[in-house]
């Protein structure tokens, strides 16, 4: 029988596997793979090696010209003005102008990290995996870009535009001359009660209600207009996403309130102020 000459290993009735075919070729996968792969050595290692060389060379080159700063020895007798944190924390330090330390220094960083970790569980849009796309995930990309832009702008302000007493100094201004003390700031509840001629309690109630309204409207309006978005996410995911989003948007809003209306606190409780 002619078939017999091709049977290199005879089939064994006791085994569930067997040699199917012998083919000629140079690589384990002879037919074209479903994925268009290539050997890691040398193709990927080549890129990595060149990048490593370039980065190391750049570092060594820069180290000749950029001296690591070393100021006077640490001393409690002289306090530098302004005191600046490392650049990557200047975004948070800048927020200290607009928020109490427990928000700017603790609550917001924790929320940022938790929010970042939650991203894969909040963004259930299956599209846009493995490629750059804006049209297929507009909300996600806009959201992230907004947060990043806010972060970068705050850092740039902190690094280049803050001088003595953490006041705003343009690059061409004399950084050694103190600025006049800015006009006093007021609290939103007090402003309401004074300007509207109502009781302190009513003023407080109005500002508390405004805060509640911000979150309530922020939660209801998008759910109303983007019903598909709301349905896809479900209640828990939707509320988590929107609350994190509203807190993020709330940061520039609070900054604007302070800069435009000289408002220091919007919410006042016996334990904390926002």
């Amino acid at each position, binding site marked *: 029988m002619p078939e017999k000459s091709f049977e290199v290993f005879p089939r064994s009735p006791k085994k569930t596997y067997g040699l199917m075919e012998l083919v000629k070729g140079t690589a384990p996968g002879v037919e074209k793979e479903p994925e268009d792969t290539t050997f890691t050595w040398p193709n990927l290692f080549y890129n990595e090696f060149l990048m490593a060389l370039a980065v190391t060379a750049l570092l060594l080159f820069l*180290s000749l010209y950029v001296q*690591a700063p070393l100021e006077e020895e640490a001393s409690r007798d002289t306090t530098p003005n302004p005191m600046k944190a490392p650049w990557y924390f200047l975004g948070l330090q800048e927020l200290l102008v607009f928020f109490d330390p427990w928000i700017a220094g603790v609550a917001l960083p924790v929320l940022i990290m938790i929010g970042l970790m939650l991203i894969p569980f909040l963004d259930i849009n299956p599209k846009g995996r493995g490629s750059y796309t804006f049209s297929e995930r507009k909300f996600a990309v806009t959201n992230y870009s907004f947060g990043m832009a806010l972060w970068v702008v705050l850092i740039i302000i902190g690094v280049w535009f803050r001088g003595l007493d953490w006041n705003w100094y343009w690059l061409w201004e004399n950084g050694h001359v103190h600025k006049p003390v800015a006009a006093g700031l007021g609290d939103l509840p007090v402003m309401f009660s004074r300007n509207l001629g109502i009781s302190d309690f009513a003023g407080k109630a109005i500002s508390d209600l405004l805060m509640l309204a911000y979150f309530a409207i922020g939660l209801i309006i998008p759910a109303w207009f983007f019903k598909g978005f709301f349905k896809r996410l479900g209640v828990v995911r939707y509320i988590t996403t929107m609350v994190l989003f509203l807190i993020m948007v709330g940061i520039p809003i609070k900054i604007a309130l302070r800069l435009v209306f000289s408002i220091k606190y919007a919410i006042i409780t016996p334990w*904390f102020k926002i």
Partner: protein
Amino acid sequence: MSKLMNRISNWVTSTPFWKAVFRHGYEDTARNRSLTTFSNVLYHLHPVKTRRESIKIRYTWCMGGTSLLLFVILTVTGVLLMFYYVPDTRRAYQDIKDIMTVVSFGSTFRNVHRLAAHGMVFTVWVHMTRVFLTGAYKPPREFNWIVGVLLLVLTLLLSWTGYLLPWDQLALWAITVGTKMAAATPFFGVEGPFGAELGMRPDNDVKFMLLGGTEVGQNALLRFYVLHCVVLPLFVVVFLAVHFWRVRKDGFSGPL
């Protein structure tokens, strides 16, 4: 002459010792290409074959790999700096001065260490942005994204703890600003909301734990030194191992 060289090289590569170290030949064959990746402890973090599209620099920007490279550079230069630096408030500043002026290549190592540290904060951030924009955190890679965020936090903490070590004015007051925030932690800081109500005092709150005192002094310097040189790098290595392992298990994202 070349015959002699050939004979010598043939003899060397046929010795049991050579074969024990190098498990495969040098000829450009598919088998050797596989074995190069496969039989090397560092290279085998990679799969033997990678998708062509995933290798492209315009996809990855090389930022994850560069972060790792910077971490390695930081470890090497950091160990060299440790030989000359004692975390004692009475001499730390002078040690840095010595490193900058007396120690051979000391200023180079310190400059590279600082530049690489700033660079790593930047590259980790850009790497995260790349992963976000390519949707590479979507299933099945959700957990690796979390590990990545933890690595970002560790990177920031590493950079920040290193900031105190030169013990100059910049260091002291930057850390003073930072640890003031710790005192404002809700519940756990004396100045934070509900802190005083829960019995927090300047000598028992979270800032005190961080500094080993009520202000930045000798205890704080030692704590930051140990965190910077031992504790945080160990955590980074553990999370890096998980990070890379997950990349292999979940597969490299990339255009299908």
